[in-house]
């Protein structure tokens, strides 16, 4: 991967530049964030500014462009780009609270990831000190709850239908939703800051915990970003093993989605339980390959940790063929069952235009008929060799999203078995440098953006290295962040209380992935 193409703008020209780029085909805003350069930094010594960063993607040509807006550190102000890309909303709120960038014209700049009463300290700035943080615990939970807290329904945190510690503050009229505001950030573990505190090798640990249900794509994209900066090529076999590991993890994640998440939304216990039971077959494979069930520490920069175990091929054949035979059962039980079908069809409809504007990706985007899968678009190794097919649906509703995931499961099973058949001989790790020196490796100054398709959508890591053994800045684009915004977008269009769990479930939002 080459250098990222950068376009410099000023706060005054930002919106025009953005509009121009959008007309030129850069319709997808991956993230908006910032990089803090303090004078003693080693990337650009002496620089004293904050760069607001807008990462754009052209779905047509698969080009990547980045708008940087240099701002003074003491009073950074940029205008909002929400009129251009609606999905910029939450990214700008995040940049506001983490970097202290003031967004002019933004409708709601209350805290998103941090606690509601967090004072004016900006954690991702380089001169941030934890001791200065003070939190006002009596702050209202959301802007909605400011006026009449008695009227607000808190569909959040512990609510069994909220799929984890996240949710909404709702204004209801009977079962009809008048207004909704998301409450997220309950598992904000500050992976971006931790990434800057630990060295490249230690980061294997926390990068993998980016998503609780599919950590493997996270660590795969992290390893690839580091390798790009180091300029090393991993052996062919390692690429195959990475693919196997990632796709196994995708299977297990989609099975969780099928079972306790989407099935659990209707208390559809047979599906929920069977899916978790079948997931164990996948976890057995993952355990044999990596030694972990949820977190693996398997992929590391330079290759993978272990070669394939003995008799793995037979075990995979047996377990995955069984899983393949179960997929028609799930199709019958989930997607042809009239009650479920009635609940899913037409729910949370997104048009392709809306989905791209919001920045929704993954099965959510593909369900609207847009055939974009980063595995194919970004030429992730091996996928094209194995004849990877993008699964799409056209309806754009919850049912279509489910069918996309079901199709992806079939595709994953095929990919894993094909990859195992064609597994090349050789090393599973690059022997370009001393393996034992890896923990202390220094990475040359540079900047890269690596993307992959996690189970939930387009996952990217923007990595800036300053020549030491710790990254200068790691920005993670968690796909659930934008997908959750899509949920709020749909709820605001008018929805019902009983649709919320199904809607969150159909977006497959992972709170850990969202909060990072």
């Amino acid at each position, binding site marked *: 991967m080459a250098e990222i193409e950068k376009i410099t703008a000023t706060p005054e020209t930002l919106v025009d530049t953005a509009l121009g780029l959008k007309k030129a085909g850069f319709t997808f805003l991956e993230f908006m964030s910032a990089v803090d350069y303090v004078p003693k930094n080693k990337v650009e010594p002496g620089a004293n500014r904050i760069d607001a960063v807008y990462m754009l993607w052209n779905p047509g040509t698969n080009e990547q462009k980045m708008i940087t807006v240099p701002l003074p550190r003491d009073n950074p102000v940029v205008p909002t780009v929400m009129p251009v890309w609606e999905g910029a909303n939450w990214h700008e709120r995040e940049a506001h609270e983490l970097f202290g960038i003031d967004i002019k014209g933004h409708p709601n700049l209350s805290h998103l990831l941090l606690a509601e009463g967090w004072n004016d300290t900006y954690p991702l700035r380089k001169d941030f000190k934890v001791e200065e943080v003070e939190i006002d615990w009596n702050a209202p939970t959301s802007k909605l709850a400011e006026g009449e807290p008695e009227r607000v329904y808190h569909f959040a945190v512990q609510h069994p239908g909220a799929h984890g510690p996240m949710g909404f503050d709702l204004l209801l009229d009977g079962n009809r939703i008048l207004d909704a505001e998301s409450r997220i950030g309950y598992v904000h573990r500050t992976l971006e800051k931790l990434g800057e505190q630990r060295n490249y090798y230690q980061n294997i640990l926390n990068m993998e915990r980016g998503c609780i249900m599919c950590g493997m794509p996270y660590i795969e994209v992290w390893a690839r970003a580091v390798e790009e900066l180091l300029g090393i090529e991993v052996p062919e076999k390692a690429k195959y093993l990475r693919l196997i590991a990632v796709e196994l993890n995708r299977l297990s994640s989609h099975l969780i989605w099928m079972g306790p998440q989407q099935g659990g939304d209707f208390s559809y216990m047979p599906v929920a339980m069977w899916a978790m039971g079948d997931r164990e077959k996948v976890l057995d494979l993952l*355990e044999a*390959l990596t030694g972990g069930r949820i977190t693996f520490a398997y992929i590391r920069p330079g290759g993978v940790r272990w070669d394939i175990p003995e008799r793995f091929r037979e075990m995979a054949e047996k377990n995955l063929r069984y899983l393949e035979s179960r997929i028609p059962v799930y199709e*019958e039980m989930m997607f*042809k*069952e*009239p009650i479920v079908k009635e609940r899913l069809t037409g729910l949370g409809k997104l048009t392709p235009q809306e989905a791209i504007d919001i920045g929704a990706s993954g099965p959510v985007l593909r369900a609207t008929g847009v055939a974009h899968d980063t595995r194919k678009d970004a030429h992730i190794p091996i996928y094209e060799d194995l004849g990877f097919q993008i699964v799409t649906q056209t309806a754009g509703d919850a049912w279509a999203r489910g069918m996309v995931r079901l199709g992806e499961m079939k595709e994953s099973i095929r990919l894993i078995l094909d990859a195992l058949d064609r597994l090349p001989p050789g090393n599973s790790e690059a022997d370009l440098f001393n393996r*034992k020196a890896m923990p202390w490796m220094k990475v040359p100054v540079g900047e890269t953006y690596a993307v992959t398709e996690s189970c939930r959508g387009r996952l990217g890591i923007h990595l800036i290295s300053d020549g030491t053994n710790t990254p200068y800045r790691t920005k993670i684009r968690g796909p659930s962040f934008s997908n959750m915004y899509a949920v709020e977008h749909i709820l605001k269009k008018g929805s019902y209380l009983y649709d919320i769990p199904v809607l969150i479930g159909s977006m497959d939002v992972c709170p850990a992935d969202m909060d990072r």
Partner: protein
Amino acid sequence: MGLIKPLLYTLRELFRKPVTVKYPYEKRDISPRVRNIHTLNRETCQHCGICARMCPNNVLKMKDGYPTADYSRCSFCGICLDACPTGSIQMIHTQEHNIVRAHSEDLYMELLNPDGTVYNPEVASIGQDETNEGGVF
């Protein structure tokens, strides 16, 4: 018809044997790659402390020249294994080594011997049953 077919599937399931592994009474096969507790070969250990420095969670601390582990912090990632220059530190899994403790102080312990027995500075090793002290079974 769509309503009936799921009922047939569930009816079929009703007469099948559950997939449950009755855990404390029977145990499933666990892959040898599972990492559940550290072992340390004290003969080859060079007392360099690299494992302790490299550990992202500050689990390992050097005591009398050997690393000791505070399992309340451990993520079982195995970075210490990669960092060890001599390969003295390893992680194993046996069913008996599921660490469950009633008190957090008990989580701070010496690394096991390579054969999975408890390390004791005075005696070379004690019997297997002692490893379960504080555990359930």
